[in-house]
C-alpha cells in the first residue's frame, strides 16, 4: 500500500495499530473473532460494504430481513432525515428466501464472511417455513428473528409487541431449525415492559436477544403539510435512539444476566459500542451509521479495542455487563467519602472545573 493511499484515508487513525485486547466473544455458543457486526437492513448482504472494508474481519454480516417470497417493499418516499437519525419505511423489499440462499448467502459463503440470517414473516406459519428452509443450509452462523412485523392473522398487531405472539414465533422457529444454530429474537422497544417480552421469548427457546429494533415514528413535511413517508409512519434509527437502546439492554441484562444480547441502536463510535457492552451486550451491531460512513463497522471495531485497552481490559468478555457491578473502590485513601460533607467543599473550584473538563 502506498503512502499516498494512506494520506487519503478517511480517518487519520485508519492505519493505527489495534491494541492487544482479546476481542473474541461468544454469542449464544457462537464464537466470533470480533464483537462488532452489521445491523439487519443496513448492510444488504454484505457485498456493497466489502468495497470499503474487509467484511470477513468483523464479527458477522447480519443480512437484511428475508421473507418467504419476493417483496417489492413500499412506495417512495421511504425515508426522512431527522436530528441524529432517520425514519425509514422500506417495507422489507427483498428477493425471497430461495433467491437469497442461491445468490446472497452463497456469495457470503464464497467470500468467507460469517452470516447471521435475519428472517421476517407475516404469520407464524411463514416464520416456520423460513426456519425449515434454513434447517439444512450450512454456514448460517445464527438466525435473527425480526418479529417487528404485523401479524396478518391477528389484526396486523406487531408480533414483538405482545409476549404471547412473540413467543409463538420464536418457539416455531426454534422447533423447526437446526438445533446447533443459535436463534436470536430481535425485540422492539415500543413496549411497556421489554423485560416481560424478553422473558417470554427466552422461555420459548430464544438462545439470545437482539435489541433494539427501530422506534415507530413519524415526520410531517411542513411544505406539503402531509406525512413525509409514503408509508405514513416509519422506524426511527440512528444515534437519536441510542439512550433508549442502552436502557433496554441494561434492563434486560439486569433481569436475565445469563442471556446473551446482541446490542444495537445508534452506534457510531467505539465508545458508543462500549456503552452497550458495559450495559450487558456480548456483541453489537452497527446500523444506520453505515449510511453515513460505509467503513463504520470496521472503525467501530478498532475504536472499541482501543477503548477497552485504555480502560485496562485484556479481554472483551470481561467488559460485558461491567456497568452492573459495584463501583470500583475509591482510588486514593483519605479521599472524600460519601456522606461526609459536600464533595465540592473539599475541592478548589478550579480543580473541580479542570476535573470536569478532563473527565
Amino acid at each position, binding site marked *: 500500500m502506498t503512502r499516498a493511499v494512506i494520506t487519503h484515508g478517511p480517518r487519520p487513525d*485508519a492505519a493505527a495499530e489495534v491494541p492487544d485486547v482479546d476481542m473474541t466473544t461468544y454469542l449464544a455458543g457462537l464464537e466470533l473473532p470480533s464483537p462488532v457486526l452489521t445491523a439487519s437492513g443496513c448492510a444488504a448482504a454484505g457485498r456493497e460494504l*466489502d468495497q*470499503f472494508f474487509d467484511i470477513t474481519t468483523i464479527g458477522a454480516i447480519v443480512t437484511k430481513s428475508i421473507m418467504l417470497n419476493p417483496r*417489492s*417493499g413500499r412506495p417512495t418516499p421511504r425515508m426522512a432525515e431527522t436530528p*441524529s437519525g432517520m425514519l425509514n419505511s422500506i417495507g422489507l423489499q427483498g428477493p425471497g428466501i430461495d433467491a437469497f440462499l442461491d445468490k446472497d448467502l452463497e456469495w457470503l459463503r464464497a467470500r468467507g464472511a460469517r452470516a447471521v440470517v435475519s428472517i421476517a414473516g407475516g404469520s407464524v406459519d411463514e416464520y416456520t417455513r423460513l426456519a425449515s428452509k434454513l434447517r439444512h443450509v450450512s454456514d448460517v452462523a445464527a438466525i435473527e428473528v425480526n418479529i417487528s412485523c404485523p401479524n396478518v392473522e391477528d389484526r396486523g398487531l406487531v408480533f414483538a409487541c405482545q409476549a404471547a405472539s412473540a413467543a409463538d414465533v420464536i418457539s416455531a422457529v426454534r422447533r423447526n431449525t437446526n438445533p446447533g444454530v443459535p436463534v436470536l429474537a430481535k425485540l422492539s422497544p415500543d413496549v411497556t415492559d421489554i423485560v416481560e417480552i424478553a422473558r417470554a421469548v427466552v422461555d420459548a427457546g430464544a438462545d439470545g436477544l437482539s435489541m433494539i429494533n427501530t422506534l415507530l415514528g413519524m415526520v410531517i413535511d411542513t411544505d406539503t403539510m402531509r406525512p413525509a413517508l409514503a408509508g405514513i409512519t416509519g422506524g426511527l434509527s440512528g444515534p437519536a435512539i441510542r439512550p433508549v437502546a442502552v436502557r433496554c439492554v441494561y434492563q434486560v441484562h439486569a433481569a436475565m444476566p445469563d442471556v446473551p444480547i446482541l446490542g444495537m441502536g445508534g452506534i457510531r463510535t467505539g465508545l458508543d459500542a462500549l456503552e452497550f457492552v458495559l450495559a450487558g451486550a456480548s456483541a453489537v451491531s452497527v446500523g444506520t451509521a453505515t*449510511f*453515513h460512513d*460505509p467503513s463504520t463497522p470496521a472503525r467501530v471495531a478498532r475504536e472499541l479495542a482501543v477503548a477497552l485497552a485504555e480502560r485496562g481490559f485484556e479481554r472483551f468478555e470481561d467488559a460485558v455487563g461491567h456497568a452492573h457491578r459495584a463501583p470500583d473502590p475509591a482510588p486514593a485513601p483519605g479521599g472524600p467519602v460519601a456522606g461526609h460533607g459536600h464533595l465540592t467543599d473539599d475541592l478548589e473550584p478550579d480543580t473541580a472545573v479542570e476535573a470536569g473538563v478532563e473527565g
Partner: protein
Amino acid sequence: MTTSAQGRNGAIQVTGEVIGLRRAGEYHVLTLTAGGIPDLTRPGHFVALSVGGPESSMLLRRAFSIYSVQSRGVYGGTLEIVFATQGKGTEWLSRLHRHDTVDIVGPLGRPFALPKEPVSCVLVAGGYGSAPMFSLADALRARGCRVDVVLGASTEGKLFGVLDAKRIAATLTITTDDGSLGEHGRVTDALPAVLKRTDADVVYACGPMPMLRAVAEVASQHGAYSQCAVEESMACGIGVCMTCVLPVMGDDGVTRMLRSCVDGPVFRGDRVRWDEVGTIPEGTLGAPVSGGH
C-alpha cells in the same frame, strides 16, 4: 482499510479537501481533492458526500453528479460538483472554506452507456442536471459522435454550463420557462425539432423526473434510444439502504423496484415506468396482491 477498491463497482472512500467554491448563477461549484476517484470516474458517475463534519447530526449522504474530474495536477486528483442550496446539508456545503475537509465516496452508480458507432447524440438537461453532460459530450466527441445540446431551466440564473455547452455542442438550444434566455418554454418543446434536424440516434438526459419522463417519450416517438440519469433521494448512495428505488422493466418484461444508486442513476428511458414512479405498479415483482404492506 477503506481506501482500496475491492468491490465489483470499485468505489472508494476518501477525505477530500476543499480547493475552491464558486458561484455559478444560482448554483455553487465545489472543487475537492479526491484521491483516486477521478481515475475511476466515467461520465454519469456520482459521488456521495457526508455533510456537517465528523459529529454531524445529519446522517444521510448527499449525492451529486460529477461535473468534472482532473486525474492529476497540483493537487493530485480533483473533482467538481454543482449544487443548489436546498436544505441544511447543501447550506453546510455552501459555507465550506478552502482546506476544509469532506468525506467522499465514489465513483458510484452506472455511468452513461456510450455508442460504439459515431452516431448523432442529443444531450438534454434541466437546471444543474447539465453537470454530468459536459464530460459525456467530450467522451462522445472523442468517439466521433455529433453532439447537440438542449439546456433548460425555469429562468436564466438556473441554467448551468451555457458557456461549456457552446464549446462542445454542434448546436446549442436554450429554453427558459420565463423566456429570460433562449426559447420561451420547456426543453421538451424544443426537443422534437432538434431530434429531427440532427437525425438523432441517442438522447441523453439528466434533470427532474417530469422532464426525464417527457424526454424519454419524445425520444421514443422519434425512434431514438434514450439514457436518463435520475435524481432520487438517497440515504447511502452505495446500495444498502433501499430508499432510492423506482419501478423499471427488465429485459424479461418484469418490473422490479431498482435502486437508483447501483442499478442507476442512468436508466434506459423506455424501461422506467415514469408514470408510476413513487408507487408500486401492479404486477411488480413482489408487489402486494391486495392492499398494502
